[in-house]
């Protein structure tokens, strides 16, 4: 009985690990500059907190610091295609898109905000 149980457990575990191994982890282009405005592990966990705080103080109070602004994120993390055109950061495989698709968390930032730096949008 115990042997059967152990066998079943092993089979389940091997199935589980093989399915994890099949999933492609997010991969995204490297941002500009040496490092992000905060340590990477902090940004991974709390980027939305920074963005939420910054949106409050910038929209309502008029604080225009760049450190935690969404525009700053896009400026650093938007990558360029071969023809030099910027790729929107929320596209699959791009900085925001890759992780958000992986974690199935929908972002609606870019239904209003520009997902590429301004220089390119400008006619």
């Amino acid at each position: 009985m115990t042997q059967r149980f152990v066998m079943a457990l092993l089979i389940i575990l091997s199935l589980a690990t093989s399915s994890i191994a099949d999933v492609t982890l997010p991969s995204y282009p490297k941002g500009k500059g040496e490092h992000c405005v905060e340590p990477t592990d902090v940004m991974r966990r709390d980027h939305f907190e920074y963005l939420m705080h910054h949106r409050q103080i910038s929209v309502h109070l008029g604080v225009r610091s760049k450190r935690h602004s969404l525009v700053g994120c896009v400026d650093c993390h938007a990558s360029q295609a071969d023809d030099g055109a910027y790729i929107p950061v929320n596209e699959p495989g791009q900085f925001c898109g890759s992780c958000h698709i992986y974690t199935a968390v929908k972002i609606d930032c870019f239904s209003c905000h520009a997902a590429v730096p301004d220089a390119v949008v400008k006619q």
Partner: protein
Amino acid sequence: MTDPANKPRRRFLGRTGASTALLALVPGVKLVDLALAKDEDEPASVKTRWGLLVDANRCVTDCQACVSACEDEHALAKTGTARLDPQWIRKVELVDESNDRSLSIPLMCQHCEDAPCVDVCPTGASFKRADGMVLVDKHTCIGCRYCMMACPFNARSFVHGEVTGQKSYSPRGKGTVESCTLCVHRVDQDRAPACVESCAVDGHGALTFGDLNDSESTVSKTVRSQPHRELRPDLALNTGVRYRGV
């Protein structure tokens, strides 16, 4: 665009405007006059009250420079259906029916001190910044459009469809209300609003922007020394946009 809902209001403005005599332009008036820019991490201050002075005597009837400058600055693309197009600033013709005298003025959010749009907003999305700019926080706007109904100047637009090609400094999106921001992104960098700049470039100089609380600014000096008026003074809104020659 002809909007039948606006007709009575425009006629009203026309009648009241006609009672005021035209004024000569004061020589030596600067077109753009800004206070020293605040630091970027400094919040807007109540010591400042941004204001815009429109000189109807200098505004040219067929000129749309301010309207196109606004559209370019904020990427206000046409929707293909005129009545759904965003309109942050529009040219209004005022006609005195008794003698057919006509005037052309730009009309946009008047940045009222006691703004009706702020009063009626159920979520606090429509708000007044410390320095007098009336803005919409689109993060909290639920698109109910109460503010559009409350605005006596019909100054707000609703975004009906998906928007693309936004500028980084001017986010816009479906389901939210928007209006003139006095180009807050430029003003925070010590630059004049796009409409003011374009009016000056065209040589008309009908728009002067500055701090109404700064006794040294051109806009405040002109407001203190020259006749001018608010639109709909009967509502006692204390608007930030003032008109001369109307």
